[in-house]
């Protein structure tokens, strides 16, 4: 406080009083009018051009849900007897492992969210096009890579793989080492050949030492399985007690990487199984998208025509507000990085119909007031004021149902709830701010004094 220099009133420029030029009442109307027009223009331009800085994409590039672009959504459940024994930590570890596995297969555009309450993972993999990856197969491979085991096998018991021609030993019960005993596994080049380098945990090193000590004199195979699926069966060439080992074989680089990934990420505390699968083909999604988009455009035109016919000048204003409303919904969906889903578009279409409700309530009120013989500006003011509580109450109830839907709904339905919620909030704002400012300015013009413009019988207003 003491350090704060005291201001000398005489030196204060602002104290030289200069009366602010008073805005003409008309000027205020037109400033607000311009702001309202700019707001609508802002949202429309934003969705037409996109604004990468704001994280807003062009309307044609807004992320679409897997129900449109195609893909797979699956719910993965722990394959255990008592689901209550699954801890959040375990779920988190599994999530991490599964993510690495998915990425190891070259799929990066996916979304995995844990549901700790219900002990499960929700996985969504969009179809990336080009036919390079098949999301359904990705989920299958996740299941395949369930439990990794190193087992002693009977060299006499094998089948020959019809495709690769390789010898595949039949799985036995003699499990020597398990997936979680492996600390790391990676594909490396040794002597110019793709090789897999393994590091075991302390416990794993002990187990591996025991089994190699037993097997190396006969150079027996120690086979690797994922569940009961045969992966590889390297022969034990020596007693390995360092906790580190390499697997040599005649595999390609890709095969080495693949096996290393399976060894590295094979250590799930328990298997996960997809109990709910929803796979949508891109073709069907696209076809539904084009139909709903056309329906949306036609619906918008029909509502605009209705509003113009029924309310004339306010109808024009409402239509402008409606275009701003639709643009703003798309803007916010994009800004929240949410996806447009088919039910979402249905939600937008519904909002086009319900979004004018606030306008209808206000305009009917204005009509009533005009009929009562009050001046135009006053009628508009009273109309907005009286309609406010009605619009507020009506919107809050819709918001409640929208919120409930958002909380319980799955992917596409969440999209619907989101558009509904954004639509309600934005229509509230559009009707009470944008439409009001536009209408009040326009109504101040002499040309628009006639009651005819407000859908009331032709007669000049006071």
């Amino acid at each position: 406080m003491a350090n704060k220099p005291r201001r000398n009133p005489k030196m204060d420029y602002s104290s030289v009083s200069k009366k602010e030029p008073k805005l003409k009442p008309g000027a205020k109307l037109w400033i607000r009018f311009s702001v309202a027009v700019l707001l609508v223009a802002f949202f429309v331009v934003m969705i037409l051009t996109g604004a990468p800085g704001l994280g807003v994409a062009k309307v044609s590039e807004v992320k679409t849900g897997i129900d449109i672009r195609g893909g797979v959504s699956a719910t993965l459940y722990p394959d255990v007897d008592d689901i209550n024994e699954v801890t959040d930590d375990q779920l988190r570890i599994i999530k991490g492992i599964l993510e690495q596995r998915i990425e190891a297969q070259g799929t990066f555009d996916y979304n995995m969210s844990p549901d700790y309450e219900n002990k499960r993972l929700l996985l969504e993999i969009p179809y990336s096009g080009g036919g390079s990856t098949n999301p359904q197969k990705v989920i299958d491979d996740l299941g395949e890579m369930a439990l990794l085991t190193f087992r002693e096998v009977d060299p006499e018991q094998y089948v020959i793989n019809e495709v690769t021609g390789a010898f595949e030993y039949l799985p036995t019960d003699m499990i020597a080492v398990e997936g979680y005993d492996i600390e790391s596994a990676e594909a490396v080049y040794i002597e110019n050949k793709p090789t897999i380098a393994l590091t075991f945990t302390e416990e794993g090193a002990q187990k591996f030492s025991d089994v190699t000590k037993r097997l190396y004199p006969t150079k027996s195979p120690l086979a690797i399985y994922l569940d009961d699926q045969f992966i590889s069966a390297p022969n034990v060439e020596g007693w390995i007690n360092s906790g580190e080992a390499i697997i040599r074989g005649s595999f390609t680089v890709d095969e080495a990487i693949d096996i290393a990934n399976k060894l590295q990420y094979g250590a799930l505390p328990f298997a996960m199984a997809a109990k709910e699968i929803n796979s949508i083909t891109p073709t069907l999604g696209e076809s539904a998208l084009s139909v709903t988009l056309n329906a949306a455009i036609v619906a918008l035109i029909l509502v605009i025509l209705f509003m113009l016919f029924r309310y004339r000048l306010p109808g024009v204003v409402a239509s402008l507000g409606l275009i701003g409303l639709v643009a703003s919904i798309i803007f916010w969906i994009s800004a929240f990085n949410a996806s447009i889903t088919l039910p979402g578009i249905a939600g937008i279409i519904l909002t086009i119909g319900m979004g004018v409700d606030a306008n209808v309530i206000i305009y009917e009120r204005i009509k009533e007031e005009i009929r009562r013989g009050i001046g135009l500006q006053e009628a508009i003011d009273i109309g907005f004021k009286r309609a406010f509580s009605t619009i507020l109450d009506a919107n809050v109830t819709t918001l409640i149902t929208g919120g409930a839907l958002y909380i319980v709904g799955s992917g596409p339905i969440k999209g619907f709830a989101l558009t509904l919620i954004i639509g309600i909030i934005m229509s509230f704002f559009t009707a009470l701010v944008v439409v009001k400012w536009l209408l009040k300015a326009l109504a101040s013009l002499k040309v628009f004094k006639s009651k005819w413009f407000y859908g009331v019988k032709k007669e000049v207003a006071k």
Partner: protein
Amino acid sequence: MIDMIGKRKYMFILSAALILIGVLFLLINGGFNWDIQFEGGTIIKIEMYDDSYEAVTVESDIENLIGKNVTVQKEKTFNPDDQSNSIALLSLKVAKDNTLTSEEINAVVDFLTLEYNVKAGTQPQIKSVEPFIGVELRNKALMAAGWAMLLIVIYVGIRFRVMSGVSAALFGIVALVHDALIMLSVYTVFNIPVNEVFVAAILTIIGYSMNDTIVIYDRIRENSALMHKADLETMVNTSVVQSLPRTINTLVTTLLTITTLFVFATIFNVESIRQFAFPLIIGLTSGSYSSIFIATPLWMVWRKYRIKKKILDAKV
């Protein structure tokens, strides 16, 4: 002024009759037709070059393959790339007790691709839900509807204290239940599968219908101050008639958009959208109807009874 609430008895009877028809069909059908999403089961849809296959043959082939009963149907859908030709689909359904595992799904898809005329390079559409998840989803959806209704009662109760709020809210809820029952009746009569989309539609209608009722209540709240000399029935009727243009115009704009969606979805065979639009059309109509002919008159009848009772009590 038109008498909107004088004929209320007939309207009550009409609603009761519609709901009764629904209950009747429910008994005939032996319960709702739950979609696999709420019950469990598997649906696989695969794009075919044409529909020159025999559904029955596919059924027996698949049964031999995985040992589970399946139903195969031929379907068609709109083709965005070639509007003159629709896409032929093979739709395979498995009931809840036989829900396919991920491996079985792949076995079926691989088999069909190998043996039948499946369009090359296309992805199958698969929906598979284990029964326990279906039941969980169903309960969750019902809970959501319950919570939404409870919150609305509380909100409306607080906002409409003048109208003796809680009773107003409760009759508003009666109207909502009415709308939900009408929608369910239509579903049972036409045997449409009840799924998440349906729950979304019902919740939307709950919001819309309450919205509609509130606009009328709001008018009653306003008029009860302005017209305190008029008798209750006149005041309520005036309020309904005054808010009628709004009710009708909003119904028109909303129906206009959803009907457009429904017509497009029907013409171009987009089943998922059609399933969404149809219950909304029924619900929107029922929502506006119930606000005028169910919630408001019921509230008025109750109010009349209370006033009468008060006078009687005072006399005693």
